[in-house]
């Protein structure tokens, strides 16, 4: 009558469930995106409408806002699951927990990182970025935001259920986010000054591959420790 699911089917099932949950909790999902838009729109007002200055600070502003918006979204990654007991069930499946954790991370990126990538051209225009800079902003966000979700998952799992976990989470993962910030803004600045951004992009790509390999595994291990 019943049989255990294959690995891929389980993976798809977790992803589907996570996306359905995200849809049901869409107010929570929109918070990071709105935060991202507000922070960036405030800069022209605060700094003054000097196109020169805005263009100079734009890569940094967009990327710092993306970092903080992701940080804001991490608290809900495992918290509800901890309280309703579904996290225990996730660790008790016959499939390797890291694969299912990876589905959760993918869903987190689809609902947090991807919206930032899609809205970024609009915000880049409000900061008077050139078309080259705009393209590279999108490209670095597309490569970089998955890294933010992957590393963020490790931090969220480690600080799960801790009081004051929010501050600890920031202290834990922001140092790991800094390479993404440096290489991404570096790529945008290089490209908009007419230099090659290939070196920066390769480094972000390498960082993405490393985190793709290790983060789901480390996260599932951290979850086991946090649930013990």
């Amino acid at each position: 009558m019943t049989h255990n699911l294959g690995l891929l089917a389980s993976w798809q099932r977790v992803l589907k469930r996570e996306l359905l949950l995200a849809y049901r909790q869409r107010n929570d999902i929109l918070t990071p995106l709105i935060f991202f838009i507000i922070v960036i729109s405030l800069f022209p007002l605060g700094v003054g409408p000097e196109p020169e200055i805005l263009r100079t600070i734009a890569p940094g502003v967009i990327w710092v806002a993306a970092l903080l918006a992701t940080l804001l979204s991490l608290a809900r990654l495992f918290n509800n699951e901890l309280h309703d007991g579904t996290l225990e069930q996730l660790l008790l499946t016959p499939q390797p927990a890291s694969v299912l954790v990876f589905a959760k991370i993918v869903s987190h990126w689809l609902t947090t990182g991807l919206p930032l990538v899609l809205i970024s051209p609009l915000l880049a225009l409000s900061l008077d970025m050139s078309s080259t800079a705009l393209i590279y902003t999108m490209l670095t966000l597309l490569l970089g935001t998955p890294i933010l979700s992957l590393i963020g998952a490790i931090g969220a799992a480690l600080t799960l259920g801790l009081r004051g976990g929010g501050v600890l989470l920031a202290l834990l993962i922001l140092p790991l986010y800094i390479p993404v910030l440096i290489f991404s803004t570096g790529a945008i600045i290089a490209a908009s000054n007419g230099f090659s951004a290939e070196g920066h992009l390769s480094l972000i790509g390498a960082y993405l591959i490393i985190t793709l390999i290790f983060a789901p595994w480390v996260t599932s291990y951290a979850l086991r420790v946090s649930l013990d």
Partner: protein
Amino acid sequence: MLQANALAAERGGQRLFSDVSFSLKDGDLLHLSGSNGSGKTTLLRMLCGLTLPVNGDISWQQKNIESNRDAFNADLLYIGHRHGMHSDLNALENLQLSTQQLSNSTMVFSALEEVGLSHHLNKPLRLLSQGQQRRVALARLLLESRKLWILDEPLAALDVDAVEWFSQRLAKHLENGGMAIVTTHQEASFISHVSINVVLGS
């Protein structure tokens, strides 16, 4: 066969229990009792592999559960005192998108009918009562054919009819050669099937 050997647990530096040993064979029902705070939930989580024992070891079919986690999980069904259901999804979605088993909507529907919830299919779980949520969680017993059931207070918040239904379902599971470990503070007819009693804190 599930074998527990000299298990001990600590919480916050304090010894909860020590030297708990038993072995559970096909068709056995273990009833775990003890006062509040004696470590019943800790022991159940330990038997699932969620909490590591301070001392002792647990083996399933002669293999340590730590090193054979995936194979053990394929035989295990655990329902904790937290239901393990998403409160923003309805009963149908919760059971259909469960990570544990593949079941089509007809099977899920008939399972929900059997636990008496066919009228509340489209309500998110948070709108159902505690007892109804527990019934949804227990519907998993019908959908997943697992050899070992570990149930933490399965009767909490259930009404008389549901308790009776559960007792019958459990008896059938044991008849078919299944094993179960259950804690409860309530009177129920399945107590007559208990073959091993473990009392903590004595």
